[in-house]
């Protein structure tokens, strides 16, 4: 299946049997704001305030392993930040991507460390390099940059040359 499905309606119609789609539909169809099937990868966009329970829903649906999480800065577009959670299923032998969009002003989202403790370091990394806060994170400190660093280096408006 190499065709592209864009939009929530197309994915729900084209992949009704996909286990991740079924898990999200059984949980809360309203929280799924957008979806995409592209290059053999499923991307589900979740409303920002629902990400923690969405993570729990796909975990219960068989996507048992938290593999990766990072952010993309779409500056100057709005909404500015995108969080991409890559979740692996050892059973279905497949990755899915959960996507959350955040506005520029004081970006903040619920931490999923209660669902997967493995997200701890990844959320600290995104906090460190993008300045996105994770509510309920047990230890939200910088992880790669020094504690007294000013600014968030992976933001697109972070100066890459000259004096700091």
């Amino acid at each position, binding site marked *: 299946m190499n065709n592209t499905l864009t939009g929530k309606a197309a994915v729900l119609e084209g992949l009704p049997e996909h286990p991740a789609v079924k898990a999200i539909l059984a949980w809360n169809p309203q929280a799924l704001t957008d979806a995409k099937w*592209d*290059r053999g*990868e499923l991307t589900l966009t979740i409303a920002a305030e629902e990400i923690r329970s969405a993570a729990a829903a796909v975990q219960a649906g068989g996507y048992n392993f938290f593999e990766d999480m*990072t952010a993309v800065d779409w500056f100057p577009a709005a909404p500015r930040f995108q969080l*991409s959670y890559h979740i692996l299923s*050892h059973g279905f032998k497949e990755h899915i*991507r959960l996507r959350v969009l955040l506005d520029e002003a004081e970006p903040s989202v619920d931490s999923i460390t209660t669902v997967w403790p493995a997200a701890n370091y990844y959320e600290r990394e995104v906090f460190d390099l993008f300045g996105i806060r994770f509510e309920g994170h047990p230890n939200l400190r*910088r*992880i*790669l940059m020094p504690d007294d660093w000013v600014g968030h280096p992976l933001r697109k408006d972070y100066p890459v040359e000259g004096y700091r």
Partner: protein
Amino acid sequence: MSNPAGMPVLEPAEGAKDQHMVINMGPQHPATHGVLRLVVEIDGEIVVRLYPEIGYLHTGIEKTCEAKFYQQVVPLTDRINYLDPLSNNLCYCLAVEKLLALEIPGKAQWIRVVLAELSRLNSHLIWLGTHAMDIGALTVFLYTFREREDILRLFEAVAGQRMMTSYFRIGGVSMEPPLDFFDRVQSFIGILPEKIDEYANLLTGNPIFKNRLQGVGTISAADAIALGVSGPPLRASGVDFDLRRDIPYSSYEKFQFKVPVLTEGDCWARYLVRLDEMRESIKIIQQALDGMPEGPVKADAPKIVLPDREKMKTQMEALIHHFKIVTEGFAVPAGEVYQGVESGHGPTGYYVVSDGTAKPYRVHMRYPSFATLQALETMCKGRMLADVVAVIGSIDIVLGEIDR
């Protein structure tokens, strides 16, 4: 799990201030395999809490990638996990090829398999030598580095570089391997099985080595999955998952090999799993050499793949394409992909976002050591301080890939 919050250890816990002590291990400690700093609270010799501090090797590679053309990112990836350079190259190239929907010729895919497995052997040989050395078995280090030198010579033969190979390129490999290359690989894998038996002979039956590893650093499958442990340590805890077999890439589905799985979840199981993986890698290389397809080693995509030197000097078209690729790069269709490969340390993942230009909008690397480090406290808690050294050796971390 102990201290799942992963809170920093600053001073002894309340109520134990007279008895406990907080000590600092690293970042310049020989057993931390680089620049890892551990802050450990101990009660006598027993580890009570442990907090890893990382970031000493952070070089901002992800930021650097955003300023380079797609093809210029390949040499940067070598430097992340410098013990397994070709897996990094492979993962990045596969991700960009997925974005481009580029078909790679069979021979290039099989050469990639041969070199990715040699690279895994390279990584495992260094792990075995340094792990045994940390425990006090110094001899093995000399032997594994002898075989590693042979692998580095093979890398030098194909890429001209011993460590920072950059041999895989977007669209294939950089050039045909030298004529005698496959014969040299054949003779190397001919001698390697008996060398592995030699290491096993020195270590597996060695009661000191066994006592230092058995029952040490145990982690259950459930804890390992919750804390993000992946690769050989996860398979040593009883989870049967290997990306090469389960989500195949680069024609791994055409090879027959076993995935070693053990259930004990201790340092000893991790040692045995990796030792078996080395034997399986040899089988994969043998199959690849036996069935090596004929044909080109680069995709037929003149706007993406650099032309041969000979063509560039004789054909106008090739010269123009060469000039364009070097000066302007090539545009990659907008989109986002996540590509995973099984590197020596476990599943590596590259997340590449394109906005349709010739430079990647965002490149993120997922490396197994980063997540595995979160489980270090669970593995070490309640054990002796000296066991921390054994556990760090057994999870096989490289700080270059943790800090990036």
